[in-house]
C-alpha cells in the first residue's frame, strides 16, 4: 500500500481517478487478489458495521463492568438538543452504538482498531443514509479509509499503547474524513485536506481508559472524534485548504505519540483513569468482573 497520502493523491489526480480506485489497484497488486474479491471483503465489513449499529441502538447492552451501555439509544431517541433531526446527531448515536457493542463483547469491525471502531462506520453509514448513497459507493469509501489507515500505520501508529488515543480514534476520524469527503463528491486533494483538518484537531489526545478497559472514555471519544471528522469534512468540501500536508500532520502525530509519557498510553496510569473517581470506579468494577 502507499506510504504517503501525497503519492496516492498525485497518482489519482494524474490519472483522473479517485483515491479509492488507486487504493484498490495497489491492494490488488500487493496481495495478489482481484479487486472484486477485495470489494467483497469490504462489503462484508460494511454488513458487520451496520449490524453492530443496529444492536447498539436497542439500548439493551451493558459492558462486563457495567460502566458503559445504553447511551446510544438515549441520543437516538431523545430529541432535546440543538442537533435534533440532523445527520450530525444520528452519527454521534451510531458511534456510541458501535462502541457499546464492542464493550459488551459483541461483533464489530476493528477499523482501525476495536477501541477506535465507532467513528468510521458512524460517519459513513450516517451520511449515506442522509444522502441516500448506495452501498457500492460506501464500499468505495471504505477503500479510501483503508488507504489513509495504512499510511498512518506506516508513518505513525494505530496503537493507543504506542501513540495515545490520537493514534486510534484520531486515525479513525482521519480515515472517516477522507472517505466521506470523496463519497460526497470531493476530489482526492480535498480528501487529503480533510485528513489534515481532522487530524490537527486530534493531536495530543491521550489514551486514559479507566482500569485499562476499552470502555470509558473510549465510547464517548468515538462520538467526539466523529464530530471532529464532520468538521474536517465540512471545511474540506468548502474548499478550505490546510497549509501543512496530511503526511506531515500524520508524522507529527507519530512524533507526539513517541514523546507521550507512558501514563497516557493505555496503561491507566494517568489522565481520566487516574482521577479519584476514575480509580474508585475501576477498583469497584474490576471487582464486579471477578465475581461475575
Amino acid at each position, binding site marked *: 500500500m502507499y506510504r504517503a497520502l501525497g503519492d496516492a493523491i498525485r497518482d489519482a489526480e494524474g490519472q483522473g481517478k479517485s483515491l479509492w480506485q488507486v487504493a*484498490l489497484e495497489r491492494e490488488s497488486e500487493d496481495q495478489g487478489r482481484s479487486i472484486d474479491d477485495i470489494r467483497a471483503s469490504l462489503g462484508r465489513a460494511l454488513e458487520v458495521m451496520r449490524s453492530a449499529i443496529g444492536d447498539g441502538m436497542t439500548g439493551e447492552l451493558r459492558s462486563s463492568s457495567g460502566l458503559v451501555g445504553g447511551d446510544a439509544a438515549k441520543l437516538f431517541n431523545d430529541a432535546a438538543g440543538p442537533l435534533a433531526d440532523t445527520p450530525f446527531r444520528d452519527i454521534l448515536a451510531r458511534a456510541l452504538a458501535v462502541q457499546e457493542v464492542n464493550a459488551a*463483547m459483541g461483533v464489530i469491525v476493528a477499523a482501525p482498531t476495536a477501541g477506535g471502531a465507532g467513528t468510521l462506520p458512524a460517519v459513513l453509514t450516517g451520511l449515506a443514509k442522509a444522502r441516500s448513497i448506495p452501498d457500492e459507493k460506501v464500499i468505495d469509501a471504505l477503500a479510501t479509509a483503508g488507504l489513509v489507515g495504512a499510511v498512518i500505520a506506516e508513518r505513525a501508529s494505530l496503537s493507543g499503547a504506542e501513540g495515545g488515543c490520537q493514534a486510534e480514534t484520531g486515525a479513525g476520524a482521519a480515515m472517516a474524513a477522507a472517505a466521506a469527503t470523496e463519497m460526497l463528491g470531493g476530489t482526492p486533494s480535498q480528501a487529503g485536506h480533510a485528513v489534515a483538518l481532522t487530524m490537527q484537531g486530534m493531536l495530543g489526545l491521550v489514551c486514559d481508559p479507566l482500569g485499562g478497559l476499552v470502555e470509558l472514555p473510549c465510547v464517548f471519544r468515538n462520538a467526539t472524534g466523529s464530530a471532529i471528522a464532520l468538521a474536517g469534512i465540512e471545511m474540506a468540501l468548502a474548499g478550505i485548504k490546510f497549509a501543512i500536508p496530511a503526511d506531515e500532520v500524520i508524522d507529527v502525530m507519530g512524533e507526539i505519540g513517541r514523546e507521550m509519557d507512558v501514563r497516557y498510553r493505555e496503561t491507566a496510569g494517568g489522565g481520566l483513569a487516574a482521577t479519584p473517581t476514575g480509580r474508585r470506579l475501576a477498583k469497584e468494577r474490576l471487582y464486579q468482573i471477578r465475581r461475575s
Partner: protein
Amino acid sequence: MVSLLDIIGPVMVGPSSSHTAGACRLGLLARGLVNGTPQKATLELHGSFARTGEGHGTDKALVAGLLGFRPDDERIRTSLQIAEQEGLDYRFEKTTLSDSSHPNTVRMTLERGDIHASLVGSSLGAGRVLVTEIDGYPVDVTGNFHTIALVAEDKKGSIARITSILADHDINIATLKLTRKQKGGDAFMVIECDDSPGEGVRDEIRSLDWVRWARRLDKVSGA
C-alpha cells in the same frame, strides 16, 4: 506490508483487538501444535495480559482459540463454560517473563493425549500476533501464513532438501528465514507457505536425521 483489509478489519468480538482478537489467535496457534482441543492447558499471563486481561476477556479469548473458535465467533463470550463441557482443563497463572517481553504476552503449556507442546506469544496490537518460542526453541511466527518451524544441524544442502520436500508436495514458499547462533551450531528455520503443509510434510521433514525438531502451524490471520 500493510493491507487495506488489516485496517478495515478484522471482524471480531470486542472489546480489544490486542487483548481479545490477538489473544484468540494465539490460542488458535497453540491448538494447532497439539492438532486439536487440548485436554490440559496452563496459561501464564504476563504484563498487561495479567493486569487487565479479565476486563478485556483475554482469558475467554485464549480458551476460545484453544477450542478452535476464530476471533469473530460469538461463542468467545461463553468459552470458559464450553471448555468444561469439552473436557478442556485449563488453569490461568500470573507470571513475570523477561523485561524484554512484550507487555501482552502469554506462555501456554498444553497436553492432548501423549502430545505435549508449549508456546510463548505476544499480541502486538490491531489483532497482530507474534509467536516467539515453541517448545523452548526461539521462533518468529506471525500466523499470517501457514508456517513450518524447524531446528536442524548446520549443514550444507539442508535448505535445498527441505525446499524440495515442499515442492514435491506442491507447496509454494512465501518467505524463508534462516538464522544460526554460530557456525556449525543449530540452524533455526522458519518457512512461511502459501499452501497448508499437512502432517505428512512435517513428518517427512522430521524423518531427516539432521532435523532435531519441527512443527507446523496453520495460519490464523490474513487474507
